[in-house]
């Protein structure tokens, strides 16, 4: 008799301590380290510089803070085989913030006349010769304000880049720039929340419709959620931000990691060969191999992503890796014991 067939033969409810520990640890990691929001959701600017140099991130960070007064700067550096990667992300630049406030104030003025007057003052202050622009109506002036903001924004970014280029000798022609405006990030944010809610509702419905029994359905969903917590803990530990890449990956993990639970539940509830303990052990044998192969593949992806500095792969691999490891505990030490207890108590 193997490890698997003996696994549930003892007092299996004791296993529940393991998922409890995993749950607590995940929460500690998530709230202890915190998960930062990626630029998609927070808005702001992300500059990615590929360089062969090795740089001191703290030095660059304080340089940017003192010279440009950037807010919420994070600077991260990763080595790769082909080139190293320097990411600089910041939320706002004070001059732009004040410009934005000024623009907003003008836009909310009730009198269009004084709004136009103030626009003129602002344009002059930023040396825009509005006389040549042939602005007639109120809306022409207002759209000029937005144009001014955009021009200033680009000037700032280029200023920062050329400054870094001169100081550190980076090749600033090969820079990737990502800018997400506050309106866009707010839209992304509300959309991804909506997606998550719909996804969770759909998955709950699917499972309840398939099994039509309360305890097993709840157990499957609880497992999925614990896996997602594991993925989140992985993000907190490895510094993977919440983004439009990582949230779909978390949802994917929710849908994917459930397959072992589905197998276990199906075998326990819908079959009759052998004892339930045997069937649970049987399922575990299959399930552990399923998860092991997946972890093996994800590890390859993770190594590859680190070698070539491919952030998208790295983020997804981290989430899947942590989620799948947690899934081993969640499925076989939480769902397994709960279902066995449920099946056996039903028989009595």
């Amino acid at each position, binding site marked *: 008799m193997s490890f698997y067939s003996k696994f549930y033969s003892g007092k299996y409810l004791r296993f529940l301590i393991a998922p409890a520990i995993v749950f607590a640890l995940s929460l500690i990691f998530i709230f202890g380290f915190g998960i930062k929001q990626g630029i998609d959701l927070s808005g702001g600017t992300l500059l990615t510089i590929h360089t062969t140099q090795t740089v001191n991130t703290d030095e660059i960070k304080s340089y940017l803070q003192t010279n440009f007064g950037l807010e919420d700067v994070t600077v991260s550096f990763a080595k790769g085989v082909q080139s190293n990667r320097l990411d600089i992300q910041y939320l706002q630049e004070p001059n732009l913030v004040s410009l934005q406030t000024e623009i907003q104030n003008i836009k909310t003025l009730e009198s269009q006349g004084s709004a136009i007057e103030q626009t003129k003052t602002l344009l002059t202050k930023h040396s825009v010769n509005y006389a040549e622009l042939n602005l007639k109506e109120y809306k022409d002036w207002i759209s000029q304000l*937005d144009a001014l903001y955009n021009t200033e924004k680009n000037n700032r970014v280029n200023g920062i880049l050329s400054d870094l280029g001169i100081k550190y000798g980076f090749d600033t022609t090969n820079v990737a720039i990502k800018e997400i405006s506050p309106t*866009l990030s707010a839209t992304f944010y509300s959309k991804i929340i909506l997606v998550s809610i719909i996804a969770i509702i759909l998955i709950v419905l699917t499972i309840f419709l398939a099994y039509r029994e309360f305890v097993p359905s709840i157990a499957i969903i609880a497992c999925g959620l614990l896996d997602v917590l594991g993925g989140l803990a992985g993000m907190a530990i490895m510094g993977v931000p919440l983004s439009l890449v990582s949230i779909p990956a978390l949802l*994917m993990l929710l*849908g994917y990691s459930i397959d072992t639970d589905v197998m276990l539940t199906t075998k326990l509830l819908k*079959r009759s060969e052998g004892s339930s303990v045997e069937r649970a052990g049987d399922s575990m044998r*299959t399930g552990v191999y399923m998860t092991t*192969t997946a972890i093996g593949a994800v590890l390859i992806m993770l190594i590859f992503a680190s070698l070539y500095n491919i952030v998208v792969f790295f983020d997804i691999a981290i989430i899947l890796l942590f989620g799948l490891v947690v899934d081993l505990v969640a499925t076989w030490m939480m769902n397994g014991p709960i279902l066995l207890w449920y099946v056996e108590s039903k028989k009595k």
Partner: protein
Amino acid sequence: MNFLKNIKVIILLVILILGAIILLTKGLNYGLDFSGGTQFIITLSEPVKDGSTMDRINETIAKRMDWSGLKDVKVNSWDNRFVSVQIAESDPKQVAQIEELLQKQGKFECVFEGKVLFNGDSVTVNKSADKGYGINKNKSTGFEDWAVPFTLNPKDARNFSEGIFHKCVALPDGTSSCPSTYFFIDRPLDSLVLIPKDIYDVESLDTDTYGNEFDTAIKNSNVNYIIFTEFDSNTLNEIKTKLTTLNLQKIVYPGTTDIGVLKDANLNVKFIEVAKTSDPWIKSAIGLKSIIGLRDSITNKNVAAITAPNFVVFANLAIQGAAPTLAEAQSEVNELSAILSSGSLPVGIENISKETVSPVLGQNILSKILIMGLLALLVVAIIIFVRYNDWRIAIPIFVTGAAEVFLVLAFAALINWQLDLVAIAGILTAVGTGVDDQIIITDELERNKGKEQSEERSLLARVKRAFFIIWMSAATLAATMLPIIFVFGGVPKLIGFAITTLAGVAIGVLITRPAFAAIIKEIINN
């Protein structure tokens, strides 16, 4: 090899062949991550509720991008408020320039005596040959004369007619001398135009194109320019002074001029090269489209005052020109009509978000990703070999996984999906779920191999039950991935992961797994 006769295996083989044909004929589309480029997301200043306005915005932006000479521009809008524009350019300076072009309103202007009389917003193009729209061969010059007639709205028509009132001067010989109106598109008012002396000499004598008005044309444009022979210190100083005193942001120069000296001079401006076409260079440089001389009649010569009852308001005008070839005349007409009829955006632009991807990874990363994928599958195959101690099981799992990758790629080619890194990550994870399912099938069949078939345990029943689990896990995955496609549908770059995952799962459940089950059943039975 009996399984080759199985219908499910035959279906798989047929689809694999189809997939190969699709991949060979259509090829794969690579997204920004591999080709490099920029995606802009434009936030409009207000939501656009009606579809035709949104179409117009998309069209205008697409036309404008085409016009700027960019290729492979993709424009699409979502949520009534956002327009994504994808271009294959990632150099920050160029990108900033394009961003500016996007923000521009696409300005057509009619300038008279240095003042704007009306702009593109007041204009409706008459696309009818009766009104003169189109191209006619001029027998005497041999050129193709073209014309784009348009109607002014009443307010601006009046404004125009008043603006040119009594502008012709009677000459002693009984004829009149009339000034001209100048039509511009996007006059480079924020630029300094560098005119090499040799171009100036040739073009200022070209009376065919300008009459005698070369100088007046430049002056009327209000564009700042200098005429120079070489970039000596005097010229450089002049350029610097003009740039700073007039606060100019760009330098416009002809492609034939080497501006290396200027680029090294730290002028902090953008350089815009304007190529020489069949038109005189200066026309392209200042955005001049047409010079139209006035005639006595249009200036209301015989009317006493603008308030007089017989004062005539002219609303129907035309932009005219000539080109040496029919093709050039046609493109001129098309461009003008495009800008005039869908010229400026109907709503303002609040801000532009963007993502540039430098082609640092390049396409060579693809072969590495392929190797990684095969390596991952190999690791899986090894784990499976260790488990079953039988290559006859590990190999089909490996082959099925590879077939799934292949079919998802064929699917992407079929729907012209742009493959980005996220999409490839989606393929990898989909194949991961596929392997899981294959393990379930294998275990289900392998488990009771030696036992008697006394219960309802026929192989068929076991495969059926394995498929319940497989369908369930496919359904849960669909439940989490479908909402992404519905909610983010308009932003292709964001749903690539969900698309390929779902495609992979669907292909797996419908095509590859049934075939795998048939094959593995055969192998285990022997």
